[in-house]
């Protein structure tokens, strides 16, 4: 099978920005299903104030804000007002998955342009108790209009329904098996068992996945992520400023790709191979700009809206050969204790669904060595990580993490990615 040429992609992003920006603060609410019963405004202010505390910053230190939503959140001015932040810059954009990494790139540009100094990026959503991310409820009943007559009129609307032809075709093209793909859920559930914050923290088996009911073939219920209510925040600033506020290792941004697309993104199935996703193109920007490759990465955060999305992205970003994603996710590589663990928090399948930002938070903590598992806290106030990944353990801090990669997914045709390094 031949692919359209990507050799014309010119990765000429200014490399002088590499390692010059830090994610200096991270914060999150609980991950719940109807448990908190709060507005997205209340949740966002909590997540941002926690991220500011993590960054050792006050309201005077934050002067930029970015958020993403699909009309299911609260805009930045209300959040900033609640927190006493006077903004020099803000923007609230339309977007779901893959927005996080793209907005990090935008924040870097805005700071570099001198528009502001420090940007809080947040996503706040009641994905279970208000706007159901699975598309059930009010979203499923609005009239089908214009261009949607080519999709929603056929009952082709929810994310799983829209992506399924890509997933099916991967199985057809490469012989990928349901058991291989189910291993993504099994692995992430084992990771989530070491994450006190995770909504689902009970390990499941391949049989559990394959015997759960079908939602839309090839997706069983347990191939799909959990819909939750939560807010997440990350704070981006120049590395030198970050060091003024926070000691210890930092998560530095090495390379970003934002909302990179396949051809014919109006209906990407017109341009194959449809078993290939946007990472095929994004990797031509991500790795050259990072000055390293997949083999150098210690921990991945491949977006798991579905089991398949992690597998497809790991494959198309080059962590294995094209077509061997099924083997890669099922041979132990992506487990804690394996060569390159993926989504050590349990990800969207188990921790909670936040359109990708919690996977960045997890990797920031991995790079800092500050994973919030149940390991005991020592006399110096730091968690005493055991790095014991045998069955029944509680540690999920990977030892000596130097490089992480986040692979954000919007849909088969659009993705974002980011490499972070410890510095």
């Amino acid at each position: 099978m031949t692919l359209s040429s990507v050799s014309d992609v010119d990765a000429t992003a200014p490399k002088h920005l590499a390692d010059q920006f830090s994610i200096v603060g991270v914060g999150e609410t609980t991950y719940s299903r109807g448990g908190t019963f709060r507005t997205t405004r209340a949740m966002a202010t909590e997540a941002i104030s926690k991220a500011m505390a993590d960054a050792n910053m006050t309201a005077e230190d934050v002067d930029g804000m970015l958020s993403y939503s699909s009309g299911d959140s609260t805009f930045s001015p209300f959040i900033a007002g609640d927190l006493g932040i006077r903004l020099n810059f803000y923007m609230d954009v339309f977007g779901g998955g893959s927005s996080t990494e793209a907005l990090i790139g935008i924040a870097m540009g805005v700071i570099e342009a001198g528009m502001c100094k420090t940007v809080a990026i947040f996503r706040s959503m009641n994905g279970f108790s208000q706007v159901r991310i699975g598309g059930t409820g009010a979203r499923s009943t609005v009239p089908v209009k214009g261009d949607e007559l080519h999709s929603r009129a056929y009952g082709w609307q929810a994310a799983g329904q829209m992506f399924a032809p890509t997933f099916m075709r991967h199985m057809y093209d490469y012989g990928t098996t349901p058991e291989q793909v189910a291993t993504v859920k099994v692995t992430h559930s084992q990771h989530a068992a070491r994450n006190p914050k995770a909504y689902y923290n009970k390990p499941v088996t391949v049989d559990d996945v394959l015997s759960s009911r079908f939602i839309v073939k090839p997706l069983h219920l347990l191939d799909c992520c959990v819909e939750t209510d939560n807010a997440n925040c990350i704070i981006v600033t120049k590395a030198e400023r970050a060091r003024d506020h926070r000691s210890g290792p930092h998560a530095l941004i090495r390379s970003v790709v934002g909302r990179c697309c396949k051809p014919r993104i109006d209906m990407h199935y017109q341009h194959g191979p449809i078993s290939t996703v946007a990472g095929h193109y994004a990797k031509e920007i991500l790795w050259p700009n990072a000055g390293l490759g997949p083999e150098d990465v210690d921990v991945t955060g491949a977006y798991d809206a579905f089991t398949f999305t992690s597998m497809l992205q790991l494959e198309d970003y080059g962590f294995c050969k094209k077509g061997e994603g099924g083997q890669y996710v099922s041979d132990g590589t992506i487990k804690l204790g394996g060569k390159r663990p993926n989504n050590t928090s349990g990800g969207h399948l188990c921790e909670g669904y936040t359109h990708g930002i919690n996977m960045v938070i997890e990797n920031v903590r991995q790079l800092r060595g500050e994973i919030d598992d149940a390991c005991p806290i020592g006399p110096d106030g730091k968690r005493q990580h055991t790095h014991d990944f045998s069955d029944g353990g509680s540690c999920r801090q990977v030892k000596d993490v130097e490089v992480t990669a986040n692979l954000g997914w919007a849909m088969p045709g659009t993705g974002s990615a980011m490499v972070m390094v410890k510095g």
Partner: protein
Amino acid sequence: MPGQITADHLGMTLTIDELDHENREYFAYCAKGEFRLQKNPNNGLVRYPPTTRCPWTGDAEAEWVPVEGKGTVYSYNEVHHAIQPAFKAVAPYMLLLVELDTQKGQPSEMEGLRVAGNLVTADGEMAPPELVKRIGIGSRMRMVLKKISDEIALPMWTLDEDAEQPAKPWRYAQE
């Protein structure tokens, strides 16, 4: 809204604005029983679904040309848990991407006209479960234009009983 056309399909409201010329014209041809796509007269390429420009060149000129509604299932999904109320009564149902014989592998090897539609019976009704189990990647299909109103018909797909079918179309491992 003035000029907006609306129609009812399975209890679901479909609407097209008056100013949405591309979709109005596309579905109006369908309602007349004709499957037509926009063709760029400068390079002869047709495209699906309707767009405002040629996706390969950006040319604005376009003419609606008849296209044969025959092809092969390229990929599919099979919805068991319907989320739209209109579809709950007809689950399991299939969404098929059928690659037309027309312009297959053009203008580059990996391209084709992959036309969406539900699996239906020959008379345009949503397919019963026993028919769903017969269809997979490789099945040969023919188009049925399901008339919804005087202004809208939806392209749908039914098994082409006259065509040579694969011995066993590819289906997901678990039934």
